[in-house]
């Protein structure tokens, strides 16, 4: 009995300590925030009212404070070129426009890991950054889904330069603060189906996805479009797992129906292995191979080696009109990145995303007593109101679900270890 008394006594003490800690935390964190929010309320009547009216409050920047733009891009792993490329695009935009609404821009770079977990972690890290004005990201659609949810719950704009999965901007699943400058894969999948039908003249195809949001949805769009475009038929819709290295089973299963075209819109590591192993599979000797923008990077060619030659890849069309891209953007990109040429294909989209975000911030911001206030909902409305914006990637207009891209898809063929743009004709 005494023993139990002692235990319960200890428990009570523990709980008291815990309670004390919590209230201590609460006290210390509430004090400064009260200190911060009080002066504006007393100083500027109009500003504070706007901020109070805004569901998500305001970003408040004292004079001389930096304005923080977050990024959530894939910076490590096999797909790092995809994220780094977008990051360089945003940095180039930042060099040309270092200040937004009179405040110097400071980046907070996070890694989306090209995965659901990575996207969640990056979004949580960015949410904890006080006064974050907006986020450019994510690189991969699977990371974008949780990130959009987390950031939208806090009223933080997330603008992606390379998410392409249709579900991100589908009316049912769109998160309020999510937008993108990359094309929607309902366009890319249809374009690829059209290319395979009209240019290659093939009528049977198989698809492989890796279970990620991007690959799953893009393969599904292709599989839905291909039969309707040219009486084509889909022989198999296979799936693999991320991290898998041996695809003999999948490829032999597909080879049993000997399709004329094999479409695998997946990522670099698995994409390279499938390319190599498909070339060695006897039933796929005459099968044309095709992928999408997930592997449209020199890294994939390096990983696949000579097997990459002859593969068709769809992706954003980088034959931009206007001289800005070639004359100013690319030299600046080289300076920022130290790379001789772009390492992936979404740098221009990131450049446009940065500038559109900056424009929206400036449209929503107002100054009161030296402090800049940016109401978050107003920022979102300003962004979604973007119409006829002239960016590198074209003329961008956002719809109510966050699709802003002026989507142009091109197809490249790998010839002698290089991407050669072959369709559509310029």
């Amino acid at each position: 009995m005494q023993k139990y008394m002692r235990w319960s006594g200890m428990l009570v003490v523990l709980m008291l300590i815990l309670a004390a800690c919590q209230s201590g935390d609460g006290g210390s964190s509430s004090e400064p925030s009260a200190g911060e929010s009080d002066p504006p309320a007393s100083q500027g009547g109009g500003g504070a009212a706007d901020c109070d009216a805004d569901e998500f409050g305001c970003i408040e920047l004292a004079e001389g404070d930096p304005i923080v733009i977050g990024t959530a891009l894939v910076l490590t792993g096999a797909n790092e070129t995809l994220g780094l490329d977008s990051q360089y695009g945003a940095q180039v935009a930042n060099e040309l426009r270092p200040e937004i609404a009179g405040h110097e821009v400071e980046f907070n770079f996070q890694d989306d890991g090209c995965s659901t977990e990575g996207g969640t972690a990056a979004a949580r890290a960015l949410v904890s950054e006080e006064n974050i004005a907006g986020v450019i990201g994510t690189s991969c659609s699977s990371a974008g889904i949780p990130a959009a949810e987390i950031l939208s719950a806090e009223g933080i704009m997330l603008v992606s330069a390379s998410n392409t999965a249709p579900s991100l901007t589908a009316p049912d699943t769109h998160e309020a603060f999510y937008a993108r400058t990359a094309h929607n894969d309902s366009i890319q999948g249809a374009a690829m189906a059209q290319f395979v039908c009209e240019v290659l003249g093939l009528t049977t195809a198989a698809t492989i996805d890796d279970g990620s949001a991007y690959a799953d949805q893009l393969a599904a769009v292709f599989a839905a479009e291909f039969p309707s475009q040219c009486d084509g038929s889909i022989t198999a819709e296979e799936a693999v797992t991320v991290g898998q290295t041996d695809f003999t089973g999948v490829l032999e299963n597909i080879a049993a129906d000997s399709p004329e075209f094999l479409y695998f819109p997946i990522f670099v590591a698995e994409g390279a292995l499938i390319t190599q192993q498909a070339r060695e599979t006897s039933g796929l000797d005459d099968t044309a191979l095709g992928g999408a923008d997930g592997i449209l990077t020199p890294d994939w060619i390096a990983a696949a080696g000579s097997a990459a030659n002859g593969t068709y890849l769809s992706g954003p069309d980088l034959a931009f009109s206007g001289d800005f891209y070639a004359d100013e953007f690319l030299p600046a990109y080289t300076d920022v990145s130290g790379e001789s040429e772009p390492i992936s294909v979404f740098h221009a989209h990131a450049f446009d995303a940065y500038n559109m975000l900056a424009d929206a911030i400036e449209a929503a911001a107002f100054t009161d007593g030296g402090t800049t206030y940016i109401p978050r909902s107003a920022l979102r409305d300003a962004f979604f109101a973007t119409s006829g914006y002239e960016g590198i990637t074209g003329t961008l207009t956002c719809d109510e679900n966050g699709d802003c891209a002026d989507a142009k898809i091109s197809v490249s063929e790998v010839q002698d270890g290089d991407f050669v743009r072959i369709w559509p004709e310029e």
Partner: protein
Amino acid sequence: MRGRRIRFNLVNLFLWLLGGGLLAFAAFGSFLTLVEGRIQPSQWQSLVIAGIALGSVYALIALGYTLVYGILFMINFAHGEVFMWGAFTAFFAATALNDAGLMVSNPVLAFFLVLATSMLVSMLVAIMLERIAYRPLRGAPRLVPLITAIGASLFLQYTARGFYGSGVRAYPDYTLFDGTISIGFLSLSVKQAVVILAAVGLMLALYVFINRTRTGRAMRAVSEDKDVAAMMGINVDRIIVTTFAIGGLLAGAAGILYTLIFNQVLFFMGFLPGIKAFTAAVLGGIGNVIGAALGGLILGVVEQLGPNLFLSGYGVPSPNQLKDVIAFSVLVLVLIFRPSGLLGRKENT
């Protein structure tokens, strides 16, 4: 007492029903697939050969797990990383030799140089692992070295990542092993033949080493009883280091054979093959050398053949995504019917 016995029997009954059900499911699925006849005999054959090639790599790694377990009764979870370091070394050695032109002028010598360096580096990593991470904890409870092993595994992974970056690196092509050979009705790529032959050769060498040499006998003695072996004048520490070194050598060889098939290296590449090889070791009966080899081969073949044979007959969409499910179901099945593995020693259970 009586109630407990009934429950025990119920559990057993359930397990047997589960096992029997899985077997019947697989058998009926195979029947459907074969009747459907969509997949050609030549394709089945290439699936089996690919399975054997992959299985021999699993087997080489599994030997490292099983050897260490046989002697220390600990699971060296960092062994997958020893394999990864072997693969990375092979990558750098091959790239260097490729740049030096040796891969073109004397490809056979180049291959053996790469093999030797990667085996040596893996051996060194394994020895360091034992010396730094495990030996200080020799007397500790069994859970402690297990946690250390996981820590060491992460350390080795992220050291490789720090040194070499997190991207995928492609291997230079060994033109030496291009092409296919056919023996009778069998046809397999030269790469697969090299992998299978090299693995079988190494396993035979290991078998002879364990059964025919003094050190091998000492290893068996230590595995029987460490204390008695020490009393017989065997230097137990040295035998343990030797065991790790042999495991490392085999893992290094597995590393280069793996990259020979798959052509790329990644700092995380040791994880999945490590888990698979551990599964193979358990499947064959952990602690048993022949069991590990057998387990590796079975796992490799089942992984390749299973989804297409068992599932495609049922019309399961994208059956190959489930290949790991099948591989691990085989493990469960074997453990239901033979809890100590296929060739496991009864007293270990």
